């Protein structure tokens, strides 16, 4: 295996999973977003999205808060500093791999 390909072994697999990568990418562009918005943007089912959010929350990458906007109950998700760092690192690794392999 070449060094270029071996670099992929170090990727953060929690973020590398496509659905979670999409969730983290969306959350990286906003301050916070609620469950319904993430569900619509990712196209995941409620159960699937809940499972992925739980994994990201357990890793400390996102923070989930139950809150209200007016009288509307919301489940709001926010990328933590740890999550932002992990996502930035992941992007750097992918970019470096793409640069090397052209």
């Amino acid at each position: 295996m070449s060094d270029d390909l071996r670099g992929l072994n170090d990727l953060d697999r929690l973020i590398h999973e496509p659905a979670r990568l999409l969730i983290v990418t969306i959350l990286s562009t906003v301050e916070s977003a609620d469950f319904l918005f993430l569900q619509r943007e990712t196209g995941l089912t409620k159960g699937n999205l809940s499972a992925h959010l739980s994994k990201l929350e357990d890793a400390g990458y996102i923070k989930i808060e139950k809150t209200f906007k007016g009288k509307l109950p919301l489940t709001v998700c926010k990328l933590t500093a740890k999550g932002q760092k992990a996502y930035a690192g992941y992007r750097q690794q992918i970019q470096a791999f793409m640069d090397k392999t052209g």
Partner: protein
Amino acid sequence: MKDETSQIEQRVKRYWYTDGIGELMGGGMFLLLGLYFSAQQYLGDQSFVGGLLQSGFVVIFIGGVFLGRWLVNVLKARVTYPRTGYVEYRANTGNTILMRVLAAVVAMTVAMASIFVARKFDMIDAIVAVSGVIVAIILIVKQGWSFGVGRFYFLSAASLVFGGILSVSGFARGYNLGMFYGLMGIAFAVSGGLTLKRYLRENPLPAESANE
């Protein structure tokens, strides 16, 4: 990956404009300005109410902006968030603020140049023409920031057309400005109303909340 990330970012930013509520409020603000200038022209500077209106312009304008923002938030909480979800956007970065300052400088330069040319040739009602150009520039810049919301181009073109036609209409300046902002208010209201109608049709209220 950079392209895909940027596409997601653009889609998320476009979401703010998806319901047309912001444009409806913008239309309301323009109509308020239209009424203000028309009333001022009708009442004149000498009357008590006319003088009051003139001195209270800043209060009316800033009050309108705050009321508009509050109404947008209330309407989005009632209409948009239960249907398609809630997003809180990040505060403006240094780059965005710099872009806005630059856009304001460009708009002011165009305005000053237009006034200079208009005065020199004494041909047109410079203020209404300049208003048309400034509003058009702001809308084009806004279109750029909103990442491809095409209807801002139409509103921008409408601003140039209304400003151009009214500048040579021969009406008194107050009525000219009143009509310009009134027409822009109607254009915004129509654009926002049609967008909201389509949004409501495409996004019925879910039977139960998806917020788990």
